[in-house]
């Protein structure tokens, strides 16, 4: 119980620090958000970005998924054949 209280205190302290920093920071934002969301889909723009600018991360991501798959299957597979 004591542990949980300490953990809670640590977490709250963390939240307080981060929230204080967020509130006191002047964020740079565009003046006006695009109001009519139905009008413009950003799916296309994201797709274009993924296959142009971020093509390398995208390719590496494929390796990540494959690696995670191999690793997960290997670890989760039970070896009781013999």
């Amino acid at each position: 119980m004591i542990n949980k209280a300490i953990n809670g205190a640590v977490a709250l302290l963390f939240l307080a620090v981060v929230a204080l920093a967020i509130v006191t920071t002047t964020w740079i934002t565009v003046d006006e958000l695009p109001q009519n969301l139905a009008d413009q889909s950003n799916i296309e723009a994201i797709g274009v970005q993924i296959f142009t600018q971020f093509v390398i991360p995208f390719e590496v991501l494929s390796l990540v998924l494959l690696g995670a798959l191999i690793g997960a299957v290997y670890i989760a597979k039970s070896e009781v054949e013999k």
Partner: protein
Amino acid sequence: MAIDSLAFLIPLLPALAFVITFFFGKKMYSGGALIPIGAIAISCIISILITINLLQNPEVVVHQSYPWFAIFNLGILIDPLAGVMLCMVTFVSLLIHIYAVGYMSHDPAKPRYFAETALFTAAMLGVVLSDNILQLFICWELVGLCSYLLIGFWYQKPSAAAAAKKAFLTTRVGDVMFLTGIIILFSSIFTIYNGNLPEGIYVLQFNEMFKLIPELSAMHTTILGSEVSMLTIITLLFFGGAVGKSGQFPLHVWLPDAMEGPTTVSALIHAATMVTAGVYLVARTFPMFMGAPDALIVVAYVGGFTALFASTMGIVMNDIKRVLAFSTISQLGYMMLGLGMGAVVGMEAVGVSMFHLINHAFFKALLFLCAGSVIHSVGTQDMRQMGGVGKVMPITFITMLVASLALAGFGIPGTQIGTSGFFSKDAIIETTYLFGEHTGNYIPYIFGIVAALLTSIYIFRLLFMTFTGKARTDYGGHESPSSMTVPLSILAVLALIFGALTQTKFYRFLDETFINNFVHVNIGDLAELGNYHLVHGHHGEPLLILWMPIIVGVAGLLISFLIYYLKVVDMSKIVSRNNFVFKLLYNRYYQHHIFIEVISLQLTYGLSLVGEFIDRKIIDGIIDGISDGTIAIGEIIRKIQTGVVQSYATAVIAGVGLLIILLKLIVEVQ
């Protein structure tokens, strides 16, 4: 100058011998002993030739330097100071190696022994040859490592392993001080040049360092409210390294324990290598000490106190090697005392001290080798179980006698008759008198003269207890083989005549050290920086002062003779015959013994016990405490690692939080 170009072989050959013996020694005759012997013999010949060359043209020093990488330099410097050290180290080491062929003949681990002693010699030669302080430090560490290996040579014995560890840890305290000194020196030099170091300063060559003494001396810092010269701090830290290596108080605790190794190792450590490295370091950087106010005074006091302190303990030891160990500490104290006297005699102090170093190397190597010869034959190190060894081992006895006379410094003042120790030790005591005369402070002189009396007592006590009288146990010894007695005889001749032969030449030769084409300093100017008032042309001490050392020497001999020679003879007769008259006689002697003990010796004895208590309990305790404390702290901290992963996560998150708060505070302040 052909021989100069071979200078690099001096440390290299023993190092190569180490490699060869270490890997192939097993298959060779006597564990490959001939390889290090040959290598060191060649090094010795080269060193002697170079030194002779140097004697003829003292202004041409050997200086070669090979840059190794960006800011490091492998350099060789042989000036008179290094030259005499080289000759001594190679020569004594050679004799000890030859002797070890006989002494170690029954040990199965001979290849390892010879490999390690060869490396030890190579490292020591590296210390002597260095032309810069970094290389010196590296070799210095290597010497420490080898001493660890050699003291713990019989690692099966727990006491040997413990002694090795103690030697390693204790000298490391000094090494850390030395290294701190180098770092502070480096950063001070950096400040002097304001960050733009010219090429070559980086490597901390001695000549470059010495050129900067005025600037360093002008830098000050405040410690505990008083203004201290930067140079004083640096030199005292260097001296701290020397204290560790040369077994000065309070870091001497490792030296007596270092006897756990084979006796030849003790001889090597105590006479030729290792312990003299500290004295050499102070001599090598002597111009810096000259320019540093108060540094030499500290050196003198530490040295003088060590000389006295260690000699009191020498009196109560029963282990023959331990007596010699305390004797070494005491004699090293004399050397430091001699160096400290640079405060009045300037450059001459180096000559005086180094002269004693060389003579001491001869007679101390001889003492150890004789002791080794006795132990080899008798099979015990306890003097109470010996007695009458002189009859079975006449050569050893005679050589030991010569060495003892040299250690006690017997000779006739005003003539050229005397043992080597007489010339060198008396010179130190005379300079301390001069110091007293000059400054009104006779404490160093009292240290010196009392230590001389005690020295004489303990060494003749050893001689009488071991070699005279009747055998107290049935040890059945025999004279040692010629591979052991020949080195003994050579050393005995040197211990007898070296001082008389070389005295004046030696001083003149060494005085050239700091005024030739590599290192050029003006001691007079430096002494002004260091606030020391030098005396020139000092002569005409009172006759009593001249004779004083020899008087106390003879007094010590007589005291030992009365207590340890006559008493022993009588006691055995009384006990066996139960004769009343003899008993009475014995009782008179007994009273006499009590009288002397109570009046003159009980006090010393008590002091020695107190000293030993301080030594064993407090100083050992502190040093052990530091290492145990670190381990204990480690034991506590490792418990933080509970093995529960949630607590690790808590640590990470708390770490982030604390770091944010810490940075917030610090960045706000800045």
